[in-house]
């Protein structure tokens, strides 16, 4: 059933002759071409690549490379700094806005009272000076109480 001879049958109708050909004279010149290729390979191994550039060219290229690298680094740094600043500004504005909206009336009154208290203490000597000055200038006590 699975005898290879049976399987081979369709193949037996096909010629086993080599259907491929090589260009004329190919084998005669093969050794020569191979020798040539091997010599070229050997030359490449011995002298990998010959550069015709002088030291000046290398120096100029190195300077250009350094300048480009420094320029690139500066640009990246500036960009990142500006970006950070922009971000900070945005964040602060947002925070301030959010805080203002979240402050209720009670907090405002509390803060103002504290501030008044503080201002009162700090400005007390300044009021005494003003009263003394006004009395010296001839203002009577009645007018002074009304004014205060």
């Amino acid at each position, binding site marked *: 059933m699975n005898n290879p001879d049976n399987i081979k049958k369709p193949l037996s109708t*096909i010629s086993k002759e080599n259907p491929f050909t090589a*260009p004329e004279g190919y*084998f005669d010149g093969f050794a020569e071409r191979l020798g040539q290729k091997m010599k070229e390979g050997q030359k490449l191994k011995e002298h990998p690549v010959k550069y015709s550039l002088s030291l000046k060219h290398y120096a100029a290229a190195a300077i250009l490379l350094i300048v480009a690298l420094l320029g690139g680094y500066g640009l990246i740094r500036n960009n990142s700094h500006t970006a950070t600043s922009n971000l900070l500004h945005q964040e602060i504005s947002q925070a301030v806005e959010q805080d203002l909206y979240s402050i209720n009336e009670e907090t405002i009154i509390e803060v103002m009272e504290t501030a008044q208290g503080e201002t009162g203490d700090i400005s007390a000597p300044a009021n005494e000076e003003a009263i003394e000055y006004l009395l010296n200038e001839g203002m009577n006590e009645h007018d002074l109480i009304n004014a205060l």
Partner: protein
Amino acid sequence: MAKKTIDYSDSELLHLFRNQKSKETAFNLIVEKYKERLYWHIRKLLLTHEDTDDTLQNVFIKVWTGLEHFREESGLFTWLYRIATNESLTFLNSKKRRFLLPLVDVEKQLANTLENDPYFNGDELQLKLQKAILTLPEKQRVVFNMKYFEELKYEEMAEILETSVGALKASFHHAMKKIENCLTEH
């Protein structure tokens, strides 16, 4: 009378190669002795003359650099065939990578090339057979060509491909079945 290339046995050629004075002569004799056999072995795997020529040259370059380290654990013929087979498979894979194509597409491309190849003189049935062989997995293709066209013994093939006779027989059997199906279908 001077000895012909074919008159030198493999062991004589190896002996000559190991002598620094006769190394190049020995190498040229090896090239003369095996170039045609290896060419047709590679050609049946790669199909086009240009690819075969490139690969054959690379094979002999490897032989030149590697023959010094050849320990004669196998015959020279076996060793040369192994290098030729491996180089051919490497070439096919590099072709696949170069064009970022799966292997099937490379095979399709090869089948199309064959139709217009000026160095393919086969008739319609032979072309059909070559196209059927191209549908086989790489290793089965190698086994099929070596057994069917080159008529190598399984033992020789086992040494060249470093595998067992049993595995080769099974591989050849599968290859024959697939080719038969392919030929009857189309």
